[in-house]
């Protein structure tokens, strides 16, 4: 039988980067991403440690990360706030007009709208997986995705 400590370590190591990237995409700031990722990995490690028979799936890990992000956002007071997100395109070597335009357009979206775009365009989740991850129906996912796309298009085209 697998040592539960080893199992937790294996899964945490396996998912650490992916969780951190998703947390970064959701929070858009490194320090905040580290907070959210650590909380997510803690939940994953704790669950795997006491349920060694459980095999984490990608969508389950994404869902844990998403929940940790939302819990984190809810707990924070509305003061002492970073004004902006720290896009990687803020680095001069990453500078390109297209990426700047994308970054600016994404800045204008709400958390929920950005979230569906991340799940769809970065994680390449199907609407079915997104529905499971976000705990809503597939129809609701399609509606959210359509609205987010439309808003992104409006802002993106308007900024060019």
């Amino acid at each position, binding site marked *: 039988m697998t040592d539960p400590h080893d199992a937790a370590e294996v899964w945490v190591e396996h998912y650490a980067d992916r969780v951190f990237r998703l947390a970064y995409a959701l929070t858009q700031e490194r320090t905040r991403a580290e907070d959210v990722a650590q909380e997510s990995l803690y939940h994953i490690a704790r669950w795997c440690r006491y349920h060694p028979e459980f095999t984490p799936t990608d969508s389950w890990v994404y869902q844990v990360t998403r929940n940790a992000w939302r819990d984190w956002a809810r707990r924070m007071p509305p003061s002492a706030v970073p004004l902006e997100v720290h896009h990687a395109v803020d680095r001069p070597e990453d500078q390109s007009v297209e990426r700047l335009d994308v970054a600016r357009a994404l800045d204008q979206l709400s958390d929920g709208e950005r979230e569906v775009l991340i799940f769809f*365009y970065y994680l390449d989740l199907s609407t079915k997986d997104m529905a499971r991850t976000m705990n809503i129906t597939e129809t609701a996912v399609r509606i959210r995705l359509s609205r987010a796309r439309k808003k992104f298009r409006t802002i993106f085209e308007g900024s060019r």
Partner: protein
Amino acid sequence: MTPQEREQQLSQYWHHTLDALQAPPALAERALGKARRAGPPSHTLVGGQGFWRPVTRAFVAVLSVLALTGTGFFLTRPHSLLNADSRTLHTRPQLAASTGSVAGAAKSVKLAPPMRLAALTQSTGPKLWALDYAQGFWQLWDKSLSGSAWSLVRTASGPPSVHAVLSFSQQEGWLVLPRLGGGWKAWRTRDNGRTWRPVLLPHAAATYGTVVLSNASQAVYLAVGGRSGAPPLLFQKKTRGWVEIPANRLPADLADLRLTPQGQGSLLAHGSVYVTRNGGRDWSIQPGAFNGVMTSARPTALSPLMPPTALAIRTASLEGLESSVRGRTWVVVGNYLWTTKFSHRTWQRVGRVPTQGVAHGLIFTTVKTGYILSNVGHVYITHDGGYRWARYHD
């Protein structure tokens, strides 16, 4: 651009931004250590896998039907029940994109103002606002007029610049900061700084090195300049976006702008004052504007005097900077500091200000102690009412 191209750009953006990121090694170690110390989880993490989720949903659905038909008073919060189990359908606070938060309480510092100041201004409350730059970040501070400590309320990344804008008109404030690699980014608040929302600036502004903004009485104007070989541009904020105003003889070296909804305004550039009376379409230099301040019984262009306590107004008028405390007022005009007591009928020239070029801020906290902000971000302090100045915290 076709939808496919646009979506491809979005996908490429995420992969370019995120694929190279790696979790810090300490992150996993800390998570594992915390998990070792914790006991077994007492709940399902995400609403159950397989069996429990549909059971939970069915249970909640039954309760909802009962509640809708008035069968039981305790069955009226199906979502709360679902929340308790799944932890995913909680009502999220309506946070704007810019209203996340950094961990920990707002920092406070004694002694005003914060270092490397870029701007000082005042909003209703009354409240003082300061913008400074430290260690790669812009920091927005506030404090009540009567308070002694500044609170750090917002941060933003970006390169340093003496052209950053922080402007308040009653409850509405604007913040314009430089973007690394060129261009500007802006935020607006309409609730006295409680929430800040990002605002798109005119696309043309990205190529200009200087930005000035006026938001007097809900009329917001933006002028950009400082680009060799290109004329400065003037924009007005409308509900549908920024509208360019064809401006005649708009100077390029912009320092400050003030335009009223009635179309009257003035602009500080090249150390001179330019005025307009037709909404910014035509500008003309105003000779002797500085002298006019000093000879009038009361400088009408200066902002109304505030209660007898410290205040700071960043170029509240284009004629100079004003600070008042206990009935005494100081004004920086050109390179000189002037002072007057109560009546404003007589003005005394205190001496030259220590800044080279245009001063960007003036604040007296007592009748003896005052600070002045240079246009390159240096802060000077005086302990004798403005006669002698020394660099503050080099």
